[in-house]
């Protein structure tokens, strides 16, 4: 991919600009740079996708913002708008392998279309600015842009038209539906409905795990030395329940709230630990009872907290709903977790003093 021509750095928020008149393309020629790309993904692209999915160097999977030509587009070719997150850009060019078109890449600071639209970086201002910088009015004779539907929270189509003369057409959610969309020129209700299938959920697991890796290792080691291997296994089980089991089973776990779903999972994985502590022949009755209560308090409250935090990784939850979940459940989780930790410390102290 030849994208070395652009040495300038653009910031979407540094300038406000005015509406500009439509230009007559037949008398002027574009002077701005245009990059070339292909619809073929190379090994190094796929390796970069792998790193991005693993959460490695997370903010650096970027492409240069600007106009790209794919194949050999002419003045009638479509312009597809995308974000400068490599996974977004690559999914667009991968789906358009044999189609000559332009891809207009907005500067979203390396963030995907949906998240950037929510933040406003994939937005009307940035789109109008990129139309101007790429001198689109000189490159094409039509005035149409295909914007991904999930970019719509950041874009105001009528405002883009008023400020640039370009008409926004909302394309499909998934880039893989682009060829069909380009044939039919309209999205079907099926294309417009956001889905969150197993594959999309599983691919998030490494990132979720990477967020919790360090505290998990530290707690596992601490509990291994102070409370034994079963306790450190409980830590690992708790984290895996929240980060692996939960995304995998999401649609099948009862209740709608993410916190209660996580709580149910937490109870299920806590029960075996509770039973093991209760029936441990090497501990006194008092220690057994305390030991069996602690996992039931701590494990569900931690898994529930992890799964509540998964809301932002899904296209399923509203701000009002998440806020309600926070107010409803965080006090309960904090109380349960706190009580569990106090009992754990009590059990440790009493065992140390050989009281029980």
């Amino acid at each position, binding site marked *: 991919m030849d994208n070395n021509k652009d040495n300038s750095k653009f*910031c*979407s*928020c*540094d300038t406000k600009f005015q509406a500009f008149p439509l230009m007559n393309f037949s008398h002027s020629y574009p002077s701005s740079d245009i990059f070339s790309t292909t619809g073929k993904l190379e090994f190094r692209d796929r390796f970069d996708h792998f790193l991005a999915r693993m959460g490695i160097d*997370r*903010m650096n999977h970027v492409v240069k913002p600007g106009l790209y030509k794919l194949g050999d587009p002419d003045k009638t070719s479509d312009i597809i708008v995308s974000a400068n997150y490599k996974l977004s850009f690559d999914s667009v060019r991968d789906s358009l392998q044999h189609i000559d078109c332009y891809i207009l890449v907005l500067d979203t*600071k*390396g*963030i995907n279309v949906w*998240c950037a*639209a*929510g*933040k406003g970086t994939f937005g009307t201002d940035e789109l109008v600015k990129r139309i101007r910088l790429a001198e689109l009015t000189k490159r094409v004779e039509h005035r149409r842009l295909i914007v991904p*539907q*999930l970019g*719509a*929270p*950041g*874009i*105001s*189509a*009528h405002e883009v038209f008023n400020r640039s003369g370009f008409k926004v057409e*909302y394309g499909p*959610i998934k880039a893989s539906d682009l060829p069909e969309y380009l044939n039919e020129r309209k*999205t079907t*209700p099926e294309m*417009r*409905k*956001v889905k969150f299938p197993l594959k999309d959920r599983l691919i998030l697991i490494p990132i979720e795990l990477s967020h919790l890796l360090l505290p998990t290792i530290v707690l596992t080691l601490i509990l291994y030395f102070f409370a034994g291997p079963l306790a450190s296994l409980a830590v690992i089980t708790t984290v895996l329940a929240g980060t692996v089991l939960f995304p995998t089973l999401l649609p099948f776990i009862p*209740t*709608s*709230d*993410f916190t*209660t779903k996580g709580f149910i999972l937490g109870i299920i994985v806590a029960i075996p630990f509770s039973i093991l502590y209760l029936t441990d022949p090497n501990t006194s009755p008092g220690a057994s009872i305390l030991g069996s209560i602690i996992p039931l308090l701590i494990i569900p409250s931690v898994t529930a907290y992890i799964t*509540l*935090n998964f*809301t*932002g990784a899904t*296209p*399923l*939850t*509203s*701000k*009002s*709903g*998440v*806020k*309600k*979940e*926070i107010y*409803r459940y*965080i006090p309960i989780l904090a109380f349960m977790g706190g009580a569990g930790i106090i009992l754990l410390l009590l059990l440790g102290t009493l065992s140390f003093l050989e009281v029980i």
Partner: protein
Amino acid sequence: MFNSYLENTLEYYPENCINCHRCIQVCPHNVFTEGNDHVKLTNPTSCIECGACAQNCPNEAIKVEAGVGCAWAMIRAALKGKEMDSGECGCDDDGKSCC
């Protein structure tokens, strides 16, 4: 029980609707469907408040307090002493964003 998502801030004013179908095109949860004189608000509880419909409605027929349903961002904002609704996103706070 255990469904915090039954209510949201979506408001629809059909008298302002000019039946342009923009909201239908942008909604990722099929909240709006086609009607005779104006679009119909069919699945209001499916709304995730992304704001795409209101942002793209040319005649202010839709209002919604748009935001991102991300507990992590809200809890982080609250811990930093900011409003939970401040719209801050926790995913790119590496100091590399220029804004």
